[in-house]
Protein backbone atom coordinates (compact mmCIF):
# COMPACT_ATOMS: atom_id res chain seq x y z
CA UNK A 1 0.00 0.00 0.00
CA UNK A 2 1.40 3.34 -0.95
CA UNK A 3 -0.09 6.72 -0.51
CA UNK A 4 0.48 9.75 -2.66
CA UNK A 5 0.55 12.49 -0.05
CA UNK A 6 2.61 10.48 2.37
CA UNK A 7 6.29 11.23 2.77
CA UNK A 8 8.36 8.52 4.41
CA UNK A 9 11.39 9.87 6.22
CA UNK A 10 14.18 7.37 6.76
CA UNK A 11 16.77 8.32 9.37
CA UNK A 12 19.76 5.99 9.68
CA UNK A 13 21.05 6.36 13.23
CA UNK A 14 24.65 5.53 13.98
CA UNK A 15 26.52 8.58 15.25
CA UNK A 16 26.00 12.11 16.54
CA UNK A 17 22.59 11.16 17.86
CA UNK A 18 22.31 13.48 20.90
CA UNK A 19 19.91 15.81 19.19
CA UNK A 20 17.77 13.22 17.42
CA UNK A 21 14.58 13.28 19.55
CA UNK A 22 14.13 17.00 19.16
CA UNK A 23 15.22 16.79 15.54
CA UNK A 24 12.48 14.27 14.82
CA UNK A 25 10.00 16.91 16.02
CA UNK A 26 11.53 19.60 13.88
CA UNK A 27 11.60 17.42 10.79
CA UNK A 28 7.99 16.48 11.33
CA UNK A 29 6.82 20.05 11.96
CA UNK A 30 8.57 21.31 8.83
CA UNK A 31 7.07 18.65 6.60
CA UNK A 32 3.58 18.70 8.10
CA UNK A 33 3.68 22.48 7.86
CA UNK A 34 4.14 21.91 4.14
CA UNK A 35 0.86 19.99 4.02
CA UNK A 36 2.36 16.52 3.85
CA UNK A 37 1.49 13.42 5.77
CA UNK A 38 4.64 12.18 7.42
CA UNK A 39 5.86 8.84 8.67
CA UNK A 40 9.26 8.73 10.25
CA UNK A 41 11.36 5.62 10.27
CA UNK A 42 14.39 5.63 12.57
CA UNK A 43 16.75 2.78 11.88
CA UNK A 44 19.00 2.21 14.88
CA UNK A 45 22.20 0.85 13.40
CA UNK A 46 23.76 -0.51 16.57
CA UNK A 47 22.81 -0.38 20.20
CA UNK A 48 21.28 2.87 21.46
CA UNK A 49 19.39 2.03 24.66
CA UNK A 50 18.67 5.52 25.96
CA UNK A 51 17.85 6.88 22.56
CA UNK A 52 15.56 3.98 21.82
CA UNK A 53 13.61 4.66 25.00
CA UNK A 54 13.31 8.34 24.17
CA UNK A 55 12.10 7.57 20.68
CA UNK A 56 9.54 5.14 22.06
CA UNK A 57 8.17 7.95 24.23
CA UNK A 58 7.75 10.07 21.12
CA UNK A 59 6.15 7.13 19.40
CA UNK A 60 3.52 6.84 22.15
CA UNK A 61 2.91 10.52 22.17
CA UNK A 62 2.73 11.38 18.49
CA UNK A 63 2.54 8.13 16.52
CA UNK A 64 3.67 7.81 12.91
CA UNK A 65 7.12 6.84 14.05
CA UNK A 66 8.63 3.47 13.32
CA UNK A 67 11.73 2.38 15.16
CA UNK A 68 13.82 -0.36 13.63
CA UNK A 69 16.56 -1.88 15.74
CA UNK A 70 19.28 -3.62 13.74
CA UNK A 71 20.89 -6.43 15.70
CA UNK A 72 24.39 -5.10 15.11
CA UNK A 73 26.08 -2.25 13.28
CA UNK A 74 25.55 -2.94 9.58
CA UNK A 75 26.49 0.38 8.03
CA UNK A 76 24.48 3.17 6.54
CA UNK A 77 23.57 1.53 3.24
CA UNK A 78 21.96 -1.41 5.03
CA UNK A 79 20.21 0.89 7.50
CA UNK A 80 18.76 2.85 4.59
CA UNK A 81 17.61 -0.33 2.94
CA UNK A 82 15.90 -1.51 6.09
CA UNK A 83 14.10 1.83 6.20
CA UNK A 84 13.19 1.76 2.50
CA UNK A 85 11.64 -1.68 2.96
CA UNK A 86 9.21 -0.30 5.52
CA UNK A 87 8.51 3.01 3.80
CA UNK A 88 4.94 3.33 2.53
CA UNK A 89 5.02 6.80 1.01
CA UNK A 90 5.30 7.55 -2.67
CA UNK A 91 8.12 9.84 -1.74
CA UNK A 92 10.93 8.63 0.45
CA UNK A 93 13.32 11.02 2.12
CA UNK A 94 16.62 10.20 3.71
CA UNK A 95 17.67 12.54 6.47
CA UNK A 96 20.75 12.45 8.68
CA UNK A 97 20.45 11.86 12.44
CA UNK A 98 21.98 15.26 13.11
CA UNK A 99 20.88 18.48 11.53
CA UNK A 100 22.84 18.95 8.30
CA UNK A 101 20.44 21.42 6.77
CA UNK A 102 17.84 23.39 8.66
CA UNK A 103 14.55 21.54 8.95
CA UNK A 104 12.76 24.61 7.58
CA UNK A 105 14.46 24.18 4.22
CA UNK A 106 13.13 20.65 3.64
CA UNK A 107 9.98 21.79 1.79
CA UNK A 108 12.28 23.39 -0.80
CA UNK A 109 13.73 19.98 -1.53
CA UNK A 110 10.29 18.37 -1.73
CA UNK A 111 9.05 20.99 -4.17
CA UNK A 112 11.16 19.35 -6.88
CA UNK A 113 9.18 16.10 -6.66
CA UNK A 114 7.32 14.29 -8.10
CA UNK A 115 8.21 16.03 -11.37
CA UNK A 116 11.80 14.93 -10.91
CA UNK A 117 12.59 11.39 -9.76
CA UNK A 118 15.12 12.48 -7.19
CA UNK A 119 16.28 15.65 -5.47
CA UNK A 120 19.35 15.96 -3.29
CA UNK A 121 20.41 18.71 -0.95
CA UNK A 122 23.42 20.91 -1.46
CA UNK A 123 24.54 22.73 1.65
CA UNK A 124 24.80 26.31 0.53
CA UNK A 125 26.41 28.51 1.47
CA UNK A 126 28.85 26.19 3.19
CA UNK A 127 30.14 27.57 6.41
CA UNK A 128 32.83 25.02 7.20
CA UNK A 129 36.51 25.69 7.63
CA UNK A 130 38.72 25.81 4.58
CA UNK A 131 40.16 22.34 5.24
CA UNK A 132 36.75 20.71 5.19
CA UNK A 133 35.65 22.61 2.16
CA UNK A 134 38.82 21.48 0.43
CA UNK A 135 38.25 17.82 1.41
CA UNK A 136 34.71 17.94 0.09
CA UNK A 137 35.83 19.68 -3.09
CA UNK A 138 38.51 17.10 -3.78
CA UNK A 139 36.17 14.17 -3.13
CA UNK A 140 33.32 15.51 -5.25
CA UNK A 141 35.76 16.53 -7.97
CA UNK A 142 37.34 13.07 -8.09
CA UNK A 143 33.95 11.40 -8.21
CA UNK A 144 32.82 13.51 -11.12
CA UNK A 145 36.12 12.94 -12.93
CA UNK A 146 35.81 9.18 -12.43
CA UNK A 147 32.14 8.75 -13.18
CA UNK A 148 31.28 11.70 -15.38
CA UNK A 149 28.41 12.55 -13.04
CA UNK A 150 28.69 16.04 -11.61
CA UNK A 151 27.36 16.47 -8.08
CA UNK A 152 28.43 19.26 -5.80
CA UNK A 153 27.73 17.76 -2.40
CA UNK A 154 27.67 13.98 -2.17
CA UNK A 155 28.34 14.17 1.56
CA UNK A 156 24.90 15.64 2.16
CA UNK A 157 22.55 12.97 3.47
CA UNK A 158 19.41 14.95 2.68
CA UNK A 159 17.67 13.38 -0.28
CA UNK A 160 14.13 12.99 -1.57
CA UNK A 161 13.44 10.07 -3.86
CA UNK A 162 10.42 8.94 -5.80
CA UNK A 163 9.53 5.45 -4.77
CA UNK A 164 9.88 3.81 -8.18
CA UNK A 165 13.52 4.88 -8.35
CA UNK A 166 14.41 2.75 -5.35
CA UNK A 167 13.28 -0.41 -7.08
CA UNK A 168 16.03 0.10 -9.67
CA UNK A 169 18.90 0.65 -7.28
CA UNK A 170 20.97 -1.83 -5.36
CA UNK A 171 22.47 -0.42 -2.22
CA UNK A 172 25.21 -2.11 -0.28
CA UNK A 173 28.48 -1.44 1.48
CA UNK A 174 29.39 2.21 1.40
CA UNK A 175 27.43 2.95 -1.74
CA UNK A 176 24.80 5.10 -0.02
CA UNK A 177 27.07 8.06 -0.60
CA UNK A 178 26.74 7.43 -4.32
CA UNK A 179 22.96 7.06 -4.36
CA UNK A 180 22.52 10.02 -6.73
CA UNK A 181 25.07 8.53 -9.11
CA UNK A 182 23.45 5.11 -9.06
CA UNK A 183 20.05 6.71 -9.68
CA UNK A 184 21.37 8.81 -12.50
CA UNK A 185 23.06 5.77 -14.08
CA UNK A 186 19.76 3.90 -13.84
CA UNK A 187 18.29 6.61 -16.03
CA UNK A 188 16.63 8.89 -13.50
CA UNK A 189 17.17 12.61 -13.52
CA UNK A 190 18.59 13.98 -10.26
CA UNK A 191 18.30 17.65 -9.33
CA UNK A 192 20.34 19.46 -6.73
CA UNK A 193 18.55 21.94 -4.49
CA UNK A 194 20.43 24.50 -2.45
CA UNK A 195 19.46 24.21 1.19
CA UNK A 196 20.44 26.28 4.21
CA UNK A 197 23.23 24.55 6.12
CA UNK A 198 22.45 24.10 9.80
CA UNK A 199 24.70 25.56 12.44
CA UNK A 200 24.85 22.09 14.01
CA UNK A 201 26.52 20.62 10.96
CA UNK A 202 30.05 21.87 11.45
CA UNK A 203 31.53 20.14 14.39
CA UNK A 204 34.08 17.45 13.98
CA UNK A 205 36.03 17.44 10.84
CA UNK A 206 39.36 15.70 10.56
CA UNK A 207 38.96 12.01 10.06
CA UNK A 208 41.32 9.15 10.69
CA UNK A 209 43.53 7.91 7.88
CA UNK A 210 41.40 4.79 7.56
CA UNK A 211 38.40 6.85 6.54
CA UNK A 212 40.30 8.46 3.70
CA UNK A 213 41.59 5.10 2.50
CA UNK A 214 38.05 3.79 2.50
CA UNK A 215 36.81 6.79 0.53
CA UNK A 216 39.44 6.10 -2.09
CA UNK A 217 38.40 2.45 -2.29
CA UNK A 218 34.78 3.60 -2.60
CA UNK A 219 35.85 5.69 -5.54
CA UNK A 220 37.44 2.70 -7.20
CA UNK A 221 34.28 0.67 -6.57
CA UNK A 222 32.02 3.28 -8.02
CA UNK A 223 34.28 3.75 -11.03
CA UNK A 224 34.20 0.02 -11.68
CA UNK A 225 30.45 -0.23 -11.07
CA UNK A 226 29.61 2.66 -13.31
CA UNK A 227 31.90 1.97 -16.21
CA UNK A 228 32.95 -1.63 -16.32
CA UNK A 229 30.50 -3.96 -14.57
CA UNK A 230 29.56 -5.76 -17.76
CA UNK A 231 33.02 -5.64 -19.29
CA UNK A 232 35.64 -6.37 -16.64
CA UNK A 233 38.31 -7.05 -19.22
CA UNK A 234 38.09 -3.44 -20.39
CA UNK A 235 39.08 -2.36 -16.91
CA UNK A 236 41.69 -4.96 -16.08
CA UNK A 237 42.83 -5.07 -19.68
CA UNK A 238 43.59 -1.36 -19.64
CA UNK A 239 45.70 -1.71 -16.50
CA UNK A 240 47.23 -4.94 -17.77
CA UNK A 241 48.18 -3.38 -21.09
CA UNK A 242 49.88 -0.52 -19.25
CA UNK A 243 51.95 -2.76 -17.01
CA UNK A 244 52.87 -5.32 -19.62
CA UNK A 245 53.74 -2.64 -22.19
CA UNK A 246 56.09 -1.01 -19.69
CA UNK A 247 57.60 -4.36 -18.72
CA UNK A 248 57.88 -5.43 -22.32
CA UNK A 249 59.67 -2.22 -23.27
CA UNK A 250 62.22 -2.58 -20.49
CA UNK A 251 62.84 -6.21 -21.40
CA UNK A 252 63.22 -5.59 -25.10
CA UNK A 253 65.53 -2.62 -24.54
CA UNK A 254 67.83 -4.76 -22.40
CA UNK A 255 67.66 -7.71 -24.77
CA UNK A 256 68.62 -5.48 -27.69
CA UNK A 257 71.52 -4.11 -25.67
CA UNK A 258 72.59 -7.65 -24.86
CA UNK A 259 72.37 -8.71 -28.50
CA UNK A 260 74.54 -5.77 -29.46
CA UNK A 261 77.02 -6.99 -26.87
CA UNK A 262 76.84 -3.81 -24.80
CA UNK A 263 75.90 -5.50 -21.53
CA UNK A 264 75.23 -8.85 -19.93
CA UNK A 265 71.77 -9.45 -18.57
CA UNK A 266 73.00 -10.91 -15.33
CA UNK A 267 74.35 -7.51 -14.39
CA UNK A 268 71.12 -5.65 -15.04
CA UNK A 269 68.59 -5.77 -12.18
CA UNK A 270 66.33 -3.66 -14.40
CA UNK A 271 65.67 -6.90 -16.26
CA UNK A 272 63.92 -8.20 -13.16
CA UNK A 273 61.83 -5.05 -12.97
CA UNK A 274 60.75 -5.55 -16.57
CA UNK A 275 59.88 -9.19 -15.87
CA UNK A 276 57.84 -8.27 -12.79
CA UNK A 277 55.87 -5.62 -14.66
CA UNK A 278 55.15 -7.97 -17.54
CA UNK A 279 54.03 -10.70 -15.15
CA UNK A 280 51.79 -8.30 -13.25
CA UNK A 281 50.26 -7.10 -16.50
CA UNK A 282 49.46 -10.63 -17.62
CA UNK A 283 47.99 -11.47 -14.23
CA UNK A 284 45.67 -8.49 -14.51
CA UNK A 285 44.55 -9.76 -17.88
CA UNK A 286 43.85 -13.16 -16.38
CA UNK A 287 41.76 -11.58 -13.63
CA UNK A 288 39.86 -9.63 -16.27
CA UNK A 289 39.15 -12.86 -18.14
CA UNK A 290 37.90 -14.45 -14.93
CA UNK A 291 35.61 -11.46 -14.52
CA UNK A 292 34.27 -11.92 -18.02
CA UNK A 293 33.61 -15.56 -17.30
CA UNK A 294 31.69 -14.61 -14.16
CA UNK A 295 29.55 -12.15 -16.11
CA UNK A 296 28.96 -14.68 -18.86
CA UNK A 297 27.87 -17.44 -16.53
CA UNK A 298 25.42 -15.04 -14.89
CA UNK A 299 24.27 -13.47 -18.12
CA UNK A 300 20.73 -14.70 -17.57
CA UNK A 301 20.38 -12.43 -14.57
CA UNK A 302 21.81 -9.43 -16.36
CA UNK A 303 19.31 -7.00 -17.70
CA UNK A 304 21.26 -4.05 -18.90
CA UNK A 305 18.43 -1.74 -19.75
CA UNK A 306 15.52 -0.18 -17.98
CA UNK A 307 12.34 0.58 -19.89
CA UNK A 308 10.45 3.75 -19.14
CA UNK A 309 7.46 3.26 -21.36
CA UNK A 310 6.00 0.99 -24.02
CA UNK A 311 3.35 2.09 -26.48
CA UNK A 312 1.20 -0.72 -27.80
Amino acid at each position, binding site marked *: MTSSNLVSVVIPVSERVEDLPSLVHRYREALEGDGKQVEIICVLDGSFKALSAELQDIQKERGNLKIVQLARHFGEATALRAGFDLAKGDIVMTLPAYEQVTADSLPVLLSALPDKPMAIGVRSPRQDGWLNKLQARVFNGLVSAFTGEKFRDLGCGVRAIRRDVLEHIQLYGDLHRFLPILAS*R*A*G*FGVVEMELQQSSQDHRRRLYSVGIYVRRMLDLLTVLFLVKFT*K*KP*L*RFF*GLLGTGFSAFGGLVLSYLIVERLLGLTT*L*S*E*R*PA*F*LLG*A*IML*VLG*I*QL*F*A*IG*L*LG*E*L*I*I*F*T*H*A*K*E*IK*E*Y*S*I*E*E*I*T*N
Partner: protein
Amino acid sequence: MIHSEVGVSVAIPLFNEEESAPVLHEQLKEALESLGETYEIIFVDDGSSDSTYETISEIAKKDSTVRAVKFRRNYGQTPAMAAGIDLSAGRIIVTMDGDLQNDPKDIPNFIEKIAEGYDIVVGWRHNRQDKLITRKIPSRMANWLIGKVTGVPIRDNGCSLKAYRASLIKSVPLYSEMHRFIPAMASITGAKVAEIKVTHHARRFGVSKYGLSRIYKVLLDLLVIKTLVAFSSRPLTWFAILAAPALVAGISAIWFSLYQVIVLGNPFSAVIAGTGLMFSALGGFMIFAGVFAELVYKTGDMRIESLFSLTATTVGEYSSPGARR
Protein backbone atom coordinates in the same frame (compact mmCIF):
# COMPACT_ATOMS: atom_id res chain seq x y z
CA MET B 1 -2.35 -6.16 -28.39
CA ILE B 2 -2.12 -9.89 -27.86
CA HIS B 3 0.11 -11.84 -30.15
CA SER B 4 -1.37 -15.26 -30.46
CA GLU B 5 0.95 -16.36 -33.22
CA VAL B 6 3.47 -14.00 -34.70
CA GLY B 7 5.59 -15.16 -37.60
CA VAL B 8 8.24 -12.48 -37.87
CA SER B 9 9.37 -9.88 -35.33
CA VAL B 10 11.57 -7.03 -36.47
CA ALA B 11 13.57 -5.37 -33.68
CA ILE B 12 15.09 -1.99 -34.41
CA PRO B 13 17.19 0.12 -32.03
CA LEU B 14 16.83 3.84 -32.65
CA PHE B 15 19.06 6.59 -31.35
CA ASN B 16 18.19 10.10 -32.46
CA GLU B 17 16.41 8.94 -35.60
CA GLU B 18 13.28 11.09 -35.59
CA GLU B 19 13.63 11.72 -39.32
CA SER B 20 14.41 8.14 -40.31
CA ALA B 21 11.74 6.39 -38.24
CA PRO B 22 8.64 7.26 -40.33
CA VAL B 23 10.44 6.46 -43.59
CA LEU B 24 11.68 3.20 -42.16
CA HIS B 25 8.18 2.32 -40.99
CA GLU B 26 6.81 2.83 -44.52
CA GLN B 27 9.52 0.69 -46.07
CA LEU B 28 9.09 -2.03 -43.46
CA LYS B 29 5.34 -2.22 -43.98
CA GLU B 30 5.83 -2.66 -47.69
CA ALA B 31 8.45 -5.38 -47.27
CA LEU B 32 6.62 -7.25 -44.49
CA GLU B 33 3.17 -7.19 -46.12
CA SER B 34 4.67 -9.08 -49.07
CA LEU B 35 5.70 -11.94 -46.76
CA GLY B 36 2.21 -13.28 -46.27
CA GLU B 37 3.03 -13.91 -42.60
CA THR B 38 1.94 -12.24 -39.41
CA TYR B 39 4.53 -9.80 -38.18
CA GLU B 40 5.33 -7.16 -35.60
CA ILE B 41 7.75 -4.26 -35.56
CA ILE B 42 9.47 -3.29 -32.33
CA PHE B 43 11.12 0.11 -32.23
CA VAL B 44 13.42 0.62 -29.27
CA ASP B 45 14.29 4.22 -28.52
CA ASP B 46 17.69 4.10 -26.86
CA GLY B 47 17.36 7.29 -24.83
CA SER B 48 17.32 9.69 -27.76
CA SER B 49 17.62 13.39 -27.07
CA ASP B 50 15.37 14.31 -29.99
CA SER B 51 11.71 13.40 -30.43
CA THR B 52 12.32 9.85 -31.66
CA TYR B 53 10.05 8.32 -29.05
CA GLU B 54 7.18 10.72 -29.76
CA THR B 55 7.49 9.86 -33.44
CA ILE B 56 7.46 6.10 -32.96
CA SER B 57 4.76 6.10 -30.33
CA GLU B 58 2.54 8.10 -32.73
CA ILE B 59 3.20 5.39 -35.31
CA ALA B 60 2.45 2.68 -32.75
CA LYS B 61 -0.87 4.28 -31.84
CA LYS B 62 -2.01 4.16 -35.44
CA ASP B 63 -0.50 0.84 -36.43
CA SER B 64 -1.28 -2.16 -34.26
CA THR B 65 1.70 -4.14 -35.59
CA VAL B 66 4.13 -1.60 -34.14
CA ARG B 67 5.37 -1.43 -30.57
CA ALA B 68 7.36 1.53 -29.35
CA VAL B 69 9.72 1.06 -26.42
CA LYS B 70 11.43 3.88 -24.56
CA PHE B 71 14.60 3.42 -22.51
CA ARG B 72 15.19 5.53 -19.45
CA ARG B 73 18.51 6.66 -20.78
CA ASN B 74 20.99 5.84 -23.51
CA TYR B 75 22.30 2.33 -22.95
CA GLY B 76 23.89 1.51 -26.29
CA GLN B 77 23.09 -0.61 -29.28
CA THR B 78 23.46 -4.06 -27.76
CA PRO B 79 21.05 -3.48 -24.84
CA ALA B 80 18.58 -1.89 -27.26
CA MET B 81 18.78 -4.94 -29.47
CA ALA B 82 18.51 -7.22 -26.44
CA ALA B 83 15.34 -5.41 -25.36
CA GLY B 84 13.86 -5.75 -28.84
CA ILE B 85 14.64 -9.45 -28.84
CA ASP B 86 13.31 -9.96 -25.30
CA LEU B 87 10.02 -8.34 -26.25
CA SER B 88 9.68 -10.18 -29.56
CA ALA B 89 6.96 -12.78 -29.88
CA GLY B 90 7.79 -14.01 -33.37
CA ARG B 91 9.19 -17.38 -34.36
CA ILE B 92 11.75 -15.53 -36.43
CA ILE B 93 13.44 -12.39 -35.19
CA VAL B 94 15.01 -9.88 -37.55
CA THR B 95 17.29 -7.14 -36.22
CA MET B 96 18.35 -4.11 -38.20
CA ASP B 97 19.70 -0.57 -37.88
CA GLY B 98 17.31 2.32 -37.66
CA ASP B 99 19.38 4.69 -39.78
CA LEU B 100 18.03 3.53 -43.18
CA GLN B 101 21.40 2.13 -44.20
CA ASN B 102 19.86 -1.33 -44.21
CA ASP B 103 17.07 -1.91 -46.71
CA PRO B 104 13.91 -3.65 -45.47
CA LYS B 105 13.44 -5.04 -48.99
CA ASP B 106 16.09 -7.60 -48.08
CA ILE B 107 14.06 -9.06 -45.22
CA PRO B 108 12.12 -11.62 -47.32
CA ASN B 109 15.43 -13.15 -48.44
CA PHE B 110 16.40 -13.62 -44.81
CA ILE B 111 13.09 -15.29 -43.97
CA GLU B 112 13.56 -17.61 -46.92
CA LYS B 113 16.99 -18.69 -45.71
CA ILE B 114 15.64 -19.44 -42.25
CA ALA B 115 12.91 -21.51 -43.90
CA GLU B 116 15.68 -23.46 -45.65
CA GLY B 117 16.86 -24.57 -42.23
CA TYR B 118 19.49 -22.05 -41.18
CA ASP B 119 19.40 -20.81 -37.61
CA ILE B 120 21.10 -17.49 -38.22
CA VAL B 121 21.28 -15.45 -41.38
CA VAL B 122 23.66 -12.50 -41.42
CA GLY B 123 23.79 -9.70 -43.92
CA TRP B 124 26.88 -8.87 -45.92
CA ARG B 125 27.11 -5.25 -47.07
CA HIS B 126 29.04 -6.09 -50.22
CA ASN B 127 28.76 -2.58 -51.66
CA ARG B 128 29.27 -0.79 -48.40
CA GLN B 129 28.58 2.95 -48.52
CA ASP B 130 30.99 4.25 -45.92
CA LYS B 131 34.32 5.99 -45.73
CA LEU B 132 37.17 3.76 -46.83
CA ILE B 133 39.91 4.64 -44.39
CA THR B 134 38.00 5.11 -41.14
CA ARG B 135 35.25 2.53 -41.65
CA LYS B 136 35.80 -0.05 -44.36
CA ILE B 137 39.46 -0.98 -43.89
CA PRO B 138 39.37 -1.33 -40.09
CA SER B 139 36.16 -3.30 -40.40
CA ARG B 140 37.65 -5.64 -42.99
CA MET B 141 40.63 -6.30 -40.75
CA ALA B 142 38.39 -6.81 -37.76
CA ASN B 143 36.18 -9.26 -39.62
CA TRP B 144 39.15 -11.27 -40.83
CA LEU B 145 40.49 -11.41 -37.28
CA ILE B 146 37.11 -12.29 -35.77
CA GLY B 147 36.74 -15.09 -38.30
CA LYS B 148 40.20 -16.46 -37.49
CA VAL B 149 39.77 -16.27 -33.74
CA THR B 150 36.23 -17.56 -33.45
CA GLY B 151 36.30 -20.03 -36.31
CA VAL B 152 33.08 -18.57 -37.69
CA PRO B 153 34.20 -16.89 -40.91
CA ILE B 154 31.74 -14.11 -41.58
CA ARG B 155 32.65 -11.33 -43.95
CA ASP B 156 30.64 -8.65 -42.20
CA ASN B 157 30.05 -8.99 -38.49
CA GLY B 158 29.14 -5.34 -38.19
CA CYS B 159 26.01 -5.56 -40.33
CA SER B 160 23.02 -5.22 -38.06
CA LEU B 161 20.60 -6.79 -40.51
CA LYS B 162 20.37 -10.34 -39.27
CA ALA B 163 17.65 -12.92 -38.85
CA TYR B 164 17.47 -15.55 -36.13
CA ARG B 165 15.36 -18.48 -35.15
CA ALA B 166 13.79 -17.02 -32.01
CA SER B 167 14.39 -19.96 -29.67
CA LEU B 168 18.10 -19.76 -30.43
CA ILE B 169 18.75 -16.04 -30.10
CA LYS B 170 16.73 -15.84 -26.92
CA SER B 171 19.08 -18.26 -25.22
CA VAL B 172 22.30 -16.60 -26.36
CA PRO B 173 23.55 -14.10 -23.80
CA LEU B 174 23.49 -10.59 -25.19
CA TYR B 175 25.15 -7.89 -23.13
CA SER B 176 27.87 -5.27 -23.23
CA GLU B 177 28.82 -4.80 -26.88
CA MET B 178 28.35 -8.40 -27.87
CA HIS B 179 25.95 -7.92 -30.76
CA ARG B 180 28.92 -7.94 -33.10
CA PHE B 181 29.73 -11.44 -31.96
CA ILE B 182 26.29 -13.06 -31.94
CA PRO B 183 27.14 -15.49 -34.75
CA ALA B 184 30.28 -16.53 -32.88
CA MET B 185 28.39 -16.80 -29.60
CA ALA B 186 25.64 -18.76 -31.28
CA SER B 187 28.17 -21.17 -32.70
CA ILE B 188 28.42 -22.52 -29.13
CA THR B 189 25.00 -24.02 -29.75
CA GLY B 190 26.02 -25.51 -33.08
CA ALA B 191 23.83 -23.09 -35.01
CA LYS B 192 23.92 -23.15 -38.80
CA VAL B 193 24.90 -19.72 -40.09
CA ALA B 194 24.23 -18.39 -43.59
CA GLU B 195 25.48 -15.15 -45.07
CA ILE B 196 23.61 -13.27 -47.78
CA LYS B 197 24.32 -10.07 -49.66
CA VAL B 198 22.31 -7.04 -48.70
CA THR B 199 22.00 -3.58 -50.14
CA HIS B 200 23.59 -0.82 -48.15
CA HIS B 201 22.59 2.79 -48.52
CA ALA B 202 24.59 5.87 -47.71
CA ARG B 203 23.42 7.69 -44.65
CA ARG B 204 20.47 9.98 -45.37
CA PHE B 205 19.90 11.66 -42.05
CA GLY B 206 22.01 12.37 -39.01
CA VAL B 207 25.63 11.49 -38.48
CA SER B 208 27.51 8.27 -38.08
CA LYS B 209 27.87 7.22 -34.47
CA TYR B 210 31.05 5.19 -34.60
CA GLY B 211 34.72 5.89 -35.14
CA LEU B 212 38.20 4.47 -35.28
CA SER B 213 38.67 4.30 -31.51
CA ARG B 214 36.94 0.95 -31.27
CA ILE B 215 39.88 -1.14 -32.42
CA TYR B 216 41.34 -1.66 -28.96
CA LYS B 217 37.91 -2.56 -27.58
CA VAL B 218 37.29 -5.02 -30.39
CA LEU B 219 40.65 -6.66 -29.68
CA LEU B 220 39.78 -7.10 -26.01
CA ASP B 221 36.32 -8.36 -26.93
CA LEU B 222 37.94 -10.92 -29.19
CA LEU B 223 39.99 -12.29 -26.32
CA VAL B 224 36.76 -12.53 -24.35
CA ILE B 225 34.91 -14.25 -27.17
CA LYS B 226 37.70 -16.74 -27.65
CA THR B 227 37.60 -17.54 -23.95
CA LEU B 228 33.84 -17.87 -23.89
CA VAL B 229 33.16 -19.63 -27.16
CA ALA B 230 35.96 -22.13 -27.11
CA PHE B 231 36.56 -22.72 -23.45
CA SER B 232 33.75 -21.52 -21.21
CA SER B 233 32.85 -25.07 -20.24
CA ARG B 234 36.46 -26.10 -19.64
CA PRO B 235 38.32 -22.92 -18.67
CA LEU B 236 41.19 -24.77 -17.01
CA THR B 237 42.31 -25.99 -20.41
CA TRP B 238 42.35 -22.43 -21.74
CA PHE B 239 44.26 -21.03 -18.80
CA ALA B 240 46.73 -23.91 -19.02
CA ILE B 241 47.33 -23.02 -22.67
CA LEU B 242 47.92 -19.42 -21.65
CA ALA B 243 50.21 -20.57 -18.85
CA ALA B 244 52.38 -22.74 -21.11
CA PRO B 245 54.61 -20.00 -22.61
CA ALA B 246 55.25 -18.52 -19.16
CA LEU B 247 56.15 -21.92 -17.74
CA VAL B 248 58.43 -22.74 -20.66
CA ALA B 249 60.21 -19.37 -20.41
CA GLY B 250 60.47 -19.56 -16.63
CA ILE B 251 61.72 -23.11 -16.36
CA SER B 252 64.27 -22.68 -19.15
CA ALA B 253 65.64 -19.55 -17.48
CA ILE B 254 66.02 -21.44 -14.21
CA TRP B 255 67.78 -24.33 -15.95
CA PHE B 256 69.99 -21.89 -17.80
CA SER B 257 71.12 -20.23 -14.62
CA LEU B 258 71.76 -23.59 -12.93
CA TYR B 259 73.70 -24.73 -15.99
CA GLN B 260 75.83 -21.57 -15.80
CA VAL B 261 76.69 -22.19 -12.19
CA ILE B 262 77.05 -25.96 -12.07
CA VAL B 263 78.47 -26.83 -15.48
CA LEU B 264 80.33 -23.71 -16.54
CA GLY B 265 81.29 -22.58 -13.04
CA ASN B 266 80.21 -18.98 -13.68
CA PRO B 267 79.02 -16.84 -10.74
CA PHE B 268 75.34 -17.22 -9.85
CA SER B 269 73.10 -14.63 -11.52
CA ALA B 270 70.19 -13.55 -9.37
CA VAL B 271 68.72 -11.65 -12.30
CA ILE B 272 68.38 -14.63 -14.62
CA ALA B 273 67.22 -17.00 -11.89
CA GLY B 274 64.85 -14.39 -10.52
CA THR B 275 63.29 -13.78 -13.91
CA GLY B 276 62.89 -17.51 -14.33
CA LEU B 277 61.17 -17.83 -10.97
CA MET B 278 58.94 -14.91 -11.80
CA PHE B 279 57.67 -16.47 -15.01
CA SER B 280 57.29 -19.89 -13.42
CA ALA B 281 55.19 -18.24 -10.74
CA LEU B 282 53.09 -16.59 -13.45
CA GLY B 283 52.53 -20.00 -14.99
CA GLY B 284 51.43 -21.32 -11.63
CA PHE B 285 49.14 -18.35 -11.11
CA MET B 286 47.51 -18.89 -14.50
CA ILE B 287 46.83 -22.54 -13.77
CA PHE B 288 45.22 -21.72 -10.46
CA ALA B 289 43.24 -18.97 -12.18
CA GLY B 290 42.00 -21.76 -14.43
CA VAL B 291 40.98 -23.83 -11.42
CA PHE B 292 39.14 -20.81 -10.07
CA ALA B 293 37.47 -20.39 -13.45
CA GLU B 294 36.20 -23.95 -13.23
CA LEU B 295 34.58 -23.03 -9.95
CA VAL B 296 33.01 -19.97 -11.55
CA TYR B 297 31.57 -22.04 -14.38
CA LYS B 298 30.30 -24.64 -11.99
CA THR B 299 28.43 -22.13 -9.84
CA GLY B 300 27.13 -20.07 -12.74
CA ASP B 301 23.86 -20.78 -14.48
CA MET B 302 25.08 -20.74 -18.06
CA ARG B 303 25.07 -24.38 -18.97
CA ILE B 304 26.77 -24.79 -22.31
CA GLU B 305 26.09 -28.50 -22.29
CA SER B 306 22.34 -27.96 -22.25
CA LEU B 307 22.37 -25.74 -25.31
CA PHE B 308 22.60 -28.70 -27.66
CA SER B 309 18.84 -29.11 -27.49
CA LEU B 310 18.36 -25.88 -29.42
CA THR B 311 19.88 -27.27 -32.57
CA ALA B 312 19.76 -31.04 -32.20
CA THR B 313 17.53 -32.95 -34.61
CA THR B 314 16.59 -36.58 -34.84
CA VAL B 315 17.79 -38.31 -37.94
CA GLY B 316 16.23 -41.26 -39.72
CA GLU B 317 13.09 -43.03 -38.62
CA TYR B 318 12.72 -44.65 -35.26
CA SER B 319 10.25 -47.37 -34.53
CA SER B 320 9.92 -48.55 -30.98
CA PRO B 321 10.46 -52.26 -30.41
CA GLY B 322 6.94 -52.68 -29.01
CA ALA B 323 5.32 -51.29 -32.11
CA ARG B 324 7.10 -53.73 -34.37
CA ARG B 325 5.13 -56.79 -35.44
